[in-house]
């Protein structure tokens, strides 16, 4: 996390033991995106508007901003809420870098307001919903 003026960003990075081509498919094909991210009507085309529908029923408004085939993908990630504290305007950028053993994936989400109290669905996706997912997560960790 970093702060720069009015915005903040969250960066999550991981190296996957898979080719960039395969990772790219998982990031850009709707049926695959649905499996790891959310239900969606994504299309790999700049200017395409789509929605990400969360399990909690919230909907994120997105628009493809930039695509560099197999290398980078960027789209808006907005959540409209009547309570300004929960309104969220952000941009998610994925960057893929091939490594000796696979692909390094960097995700940066930027554009939060400093007073943003909760991101990602705000009130509907509070800690309770978040904790509900823990059982499976921890089971995987062993």
């Amino acid at each position, binding site marked *: 996390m970093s702060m720069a003026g009015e915005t903040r960003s969250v960066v*999550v990075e991981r190296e996957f033991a898979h080719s960039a081509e395969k990772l790219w498919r998982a990031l850009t094909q709707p049926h695959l995106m649905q499996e*790891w991210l959310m239900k969606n009507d994504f299309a790999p085309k700049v200017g395409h508007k789509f929605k990400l529908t969360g399990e909690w029923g919230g909907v994120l408004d997105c628009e493809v901003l930039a695509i560099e085939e197999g290398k980078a993908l960027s789209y808006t990630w907005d959540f409209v809420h009547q309570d300004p504290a929960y309104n969220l305007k952000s941009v998610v950028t994925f960057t893929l870098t091939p490594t000796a053993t696979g692909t390094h994936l960097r995700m940066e989400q930027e554009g*939060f307001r400093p007073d943003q109290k909760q*991101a990602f669905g705000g009130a509907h996706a509070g800690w309770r919903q978040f*904790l509900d*997912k*823990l059982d499976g997560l921890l089971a995987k960790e062993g």
Partner: protein
Amino acid sequence: MIGMSKAQDVLFRTLADPTRRAIFERLCREGEKTVVALTAKAGVSQPVVSKHLGVLKQAGLVRGRHQGRETHYSAQLKALAPLVDWTTQMGSFWETRFDTLEDLLKRMDQ
């Protein structure tokens, strides 16, 4: 788990147990309770409830107040702050999504 703070990790592990989480949620909803009162609806024995309360206390999620021979337990919502902060929340969201993505990539080989 990469990128997850130690404080979060402790909270996650503490609340991952469904029985323990149910006890904590009940204290959040209904306020202060004794072990006896908690046991009445927990579906497990009193020693088990006591053990869970001990773990919750260690994580800072529950506090015990002694009154006579009884201890009254209450939820400490402040302890959840590491989970509620949005930046942490969002970072954890992506970490979790990446875990799922990793599983998906393995399946795509088959």
